[in-house]
């Protein structure tokens, strides 16, 4: 199968502490990858390497390489703006801009091209529909995004990310601030998204990882301990540490 992302011997230091230790991972296209592991073991760091959001973190140093669609991301001359258009990101805490729902969704597309009225409306509706929030907001597109509930805000953020039509969507614990119903909606949404794009998602919820993903990677203390199909990782882990973690026998 075609690989959407190839990570080769990725090493990340924050100052003098090493947050990722030679991590390699091949992520097939149109799949959902769950990254699991205890807090502080490098999952967010790994995710931020994929769209170079670590660039803005003071003291972060990245070695090794990441290829997105066959193009090296860390070589000189990579267009970070273009990369981030291809690789969208949804954060742990919903972070809509203090603007209207419409302006939130159209923020990304307007950065990259001129759009007339009709095109704006089209992008707006299709993005909100794909993020399964259209019906809830279609009557108040010009209302402030801050007035939405947490779950709605997170889906709005997903719509905002989808509006620039990324090939890959990174999600860092997208449901950790949400209630179970909102979480279920987002899981459902991820299954739909998989038809068109690749999703890499960090989660602390084992059931969610087992339910929603095709592949699972287990991180521990900066190492990728195990990576394989979700079925294999959960039912037949190769490593003792993975087994302990997925069965909850772990500190």
């Amino acid at each position, binding site marked *: 199968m075609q690989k959407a992302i190839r990570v080769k011997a990725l090493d990340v230091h924050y100052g003098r502490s090493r947050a990722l230790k030679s991590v390699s991972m091949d992520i097939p296209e149109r799949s959902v990858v769950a990254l699991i592991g205890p807090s502080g073991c490098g999952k967010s760091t790994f995710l931020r390497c994929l769209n170079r*959001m670590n660039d803005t973190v003071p003291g972060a140093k990245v070695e090794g390489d990441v290829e997105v669609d066959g193009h090296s991301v860390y070589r000189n001359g990579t267009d970070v703006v273009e990369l981030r258009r291809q690789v969208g990101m949804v*954060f742990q805490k919903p*972070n*809509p*801009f203090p603007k209207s729902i419409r302006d939130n969704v159209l923020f990304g597309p307007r*950065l990259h091209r001129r759009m007339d009225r009709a095109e704006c409306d089209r992008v707006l509706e299709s993005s909100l529909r794909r993020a399964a929030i259209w019906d809830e907001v279609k009557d108040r597109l010009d209302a402030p995004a801050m007035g939405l509930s947490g779950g709605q805000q997170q889906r709005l*953020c997903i719509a905002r990310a989808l509006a620039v039509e990324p090939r890959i969507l990174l999600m860092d614990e997208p449901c950790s601030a949400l209630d179970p119903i909102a979480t279920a909606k987002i899981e459902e949404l991820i299954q739909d998204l998989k038809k068109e794009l690749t999703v890499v998602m960090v989660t602390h919820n084992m059931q969610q990882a087992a339910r929603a993903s095709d592949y699972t990677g287990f991180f521990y203390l900066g190492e990728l301990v195990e990576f394989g199909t979700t079925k294999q990782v959960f039912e037949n882990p190769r490593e003792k540490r993975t087994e302990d973690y997925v069965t909850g026998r772990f500190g």
Partner: protein
Amino acid sequence: MSRLARRHLAHRVATAACLALALVAVFPLVSVLWELVRHGADVVTWEFLTTPPALPLEPGGGIQHAILGTGVVVGLGTLMGAPLGLLIGAYLAESRGKRAATVRTVVDAMAGMPSIVAGLFAYAVVVAAVGFSGWAAASAYAVLMVPTVTRTTEEALRTVPQSYRDASLALGSPRWRTMLLVVLPAAWGGVLTGLLLGVARVAGETAPLVVTMIATPFVSTDPAHSLATLPMLIYDYGKSAYPKLNAQAWGAALVLILMVLALNILVRGMSALRERRLKG
């Protein structure tokens, strides 16, 4: 006494103490305003605001020339100083490291600069080049305004959550567009207040005017020449031997204070309106 009663008593005492101290704090402000109103209210008429000065011994005459001149000098000073302060403030808010620290130290040192020094700077640079003029006075105002605008801009921009910046960057927005499209709009109320503080800081400054312009009784808005201004007029009229001019000085002082106050209220209202619209 029960514990609850004791707490209620403590609450009352603390509230009363806070109120008393707040009154002490606003007393000087209120009394200054009161004095101005007491002496100036009768002088300030529509005619006073809209007519040029008359000769000292003739009745009537106004301060139109000084209002216009102050408008021009403050306006030009803001046009020069505010963008500079905004840019430096934005730079400081978005960068760390030695260079930013150096810039911050320089700006802080500038903030303590006596206004006469700014005036002498404008005298040495601008008056030497183009003569006594509105341009020279405006440059002095600009220099005085930069530190205030810089610091308030930086503080306002820093209150914008990092998560907004992250969201924008992750959508493929370069840093400068993130600043322009996300950070600045989110902090607009604070930035505007900073600009206003900058304007208020300079609007009543007299020393820089004394060394950059020559007092004139003529109505003009041409910054290539000396202009009349409210602070200079208050200074001249205040120490004048003519009672009419003394009275007019009070009137002009009241006008100056009210102008700054009106500006403040305007901006407060604007930013309150904006916040209500965005928070929903």
